[in-house]
């Protein structure tokens, strides 16, 4: 590199020069964004956009209960694992939601509100009995999109691989039950089983990813990329792919923008998602005018 070139500060140059330092959180953000991006299509199709907000609170309650069990009941090892506790409480709540298949939008909203309040109030209440562990709960509950450890990235990649594989394998069923469950049932698809599998995979992803990246980016990834994709796609298969791509872009570019403009990472990732939604809406309107 010449001396003149050294004097010029390339945009994001510092980020890529220190790639080793930022690699894990940036890749974790992109991976989580990809997975929650395409899962978000189902979230929006089923009109459950507050699902991830509610389930992340339930995950918090599971973490708090695990600490309580460790301290007061002597649970050790896997039995007292906060990650397992979060998973159990989140999956239980997801199963409750599957029992309400024909719920009208208002009832579904109220159930999500119930789950959110149970999670948040329960976490606060249980936390008062385990004050010495509050710091750990905060860390596990809200995660940090800034500091992702190598083992966290491995965990994210494994979870992403499992969820993506399941969704490619059973995509046909998941799409059918999300757009027209009654016709699917008449045509012999096991709607209840597929719904349970879909919601459990959502719960698993939300529970694990919230503990690593935090509630705000997880909520943003599960709504905004899908909103953008649904505006520019011509069918649901294309929307799933575009939403995954938009989610990955939100995760990575959000981290990059946070570095460049000194923003909180979760907020930056959410803002990139909002920009993508606005751009997609502009593109849709432009295409409509042209046709």
């Amino acid at each position, binding site marked *: 590199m010449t001396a003149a070139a050294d004097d010029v500060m390339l945009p994001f140059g510092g980020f890529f020069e220190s790639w080793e330092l930022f690699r894990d959180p940036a890749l974790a953000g992109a991976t989580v964004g990809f997975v929650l991006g395409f899962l978000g299509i189902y979230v929006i199709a089923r009109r459950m956009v507050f699902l991830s907000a509610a389930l992340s609170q339930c995950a918090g309650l599971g973490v708090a209960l695990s600490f309580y069990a460790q301290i007061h009941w002597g649970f050790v090892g896997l039995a007292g694992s906060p990650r397992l506790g979060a998973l159990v409480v989140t999956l239980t709540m997801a199963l409750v939601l599957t029992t309400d298949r024909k719920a009208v939008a208002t009832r579904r909203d109220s159930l999500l509100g119930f789950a959110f309040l149970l999670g948040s109030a329960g976490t606060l209440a249980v936390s008062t009995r385990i004050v010495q562990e509050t710091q750990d709960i905060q860390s596990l509950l809200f995660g940090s999109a800034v500091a992702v450890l190598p083992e966290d990235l491995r965990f994210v990649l494994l979870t992403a691989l499992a969820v993506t594989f399941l969704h490619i394998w059973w995509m046909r069923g998941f799409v059918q039950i999300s*757009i027209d469950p009654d016709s699917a049932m*008449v045509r*012999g*698809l096991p709607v209840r089983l597929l719904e349970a599998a879909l919601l459990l995979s959502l719960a698993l992803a939300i529970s694990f990813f919230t503990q690593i990246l935090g509630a705000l980016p997880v909520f943003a990834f599960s709504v905004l990329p899908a909103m953008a994709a649904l505006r520019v796609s011509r*069918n649901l298969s294309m929307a799933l792919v575009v939403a995954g791509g938009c989610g990955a872009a939100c995760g990575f570019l959000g981290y990059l923008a946070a570095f460049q403009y000194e923003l909180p990472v979760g907020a930056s990732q959410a803002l990139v998602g909002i920009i993508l939604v606005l751009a997609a809406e502009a593109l849709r309107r432009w295409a409509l005018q042209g046709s």
Partner: protein
Amino acid sequence: MTESSSRSPLIDCRGLTVGYGGRAILPSLDIEVRTGEFWALLGNNGSGKTTFIRTLLGLLPRVGGEIQRAPEIVMSYVPQRTELDPTIPSRVIDFVRSGQDRGWSFLDPFRTNDHGASRRALQDARCDDLAHQQLSHLSEGQKARAVLARALVSNPNVLVLDEPTSSVDAATERAVFELLDALRRERDLALIVVSHRSELFVGRATHAIYVDRAGGVATAGEFDEITASAVFITRHGPIASPAVPAPLSPMH
């Protein structure tokens, strides 16, 4: 004995009682649905029509009685179009293809697209010219045809439609019913159609089920008998003469 009544029933209901939470909302009914029959499910709004049809389809548990379906039965169901979300993007061709799915295997869930079946269904529903248009950009009449094509793509022998013309104008409404009757004859279908517009069935329906939850009435039989019965006329009034038949196309 008519030609259809000599065939064995595709759906055989004995003492079928429908309702919610184990409580009946209508008296029990016996019906037998055979190939080639056109059943009209009549009743005012809130009379129990949709509960009856959803029970018949197995979407709701029955309160009492039995429903026997023939082994060769292939059913398709068209719910009210208000249940389809307009924000979900879909070209007509993708929407129709998605109706091919029948049954499921958790180990081998991949579908082989039968492009011939999709083309046939689009042609039979008179909407092959709409194949590459977005569903959300269609008029209500065009949507009705696309929804019908999706129901036909899996080659059903029983087609159940819930208020298929609830949001279209009168001319399109008549054209949709003409199309349904033509499809019944061309494909040898058994049709069960829910509508509160009884005059649309005149000259087309062979059988009728009349339900009135408030009056505690559920009766079934040949269309002319049911619509001429005192119980129907007292509650519903005589059916108006059908207006001038509309041509099969165009529908907008």
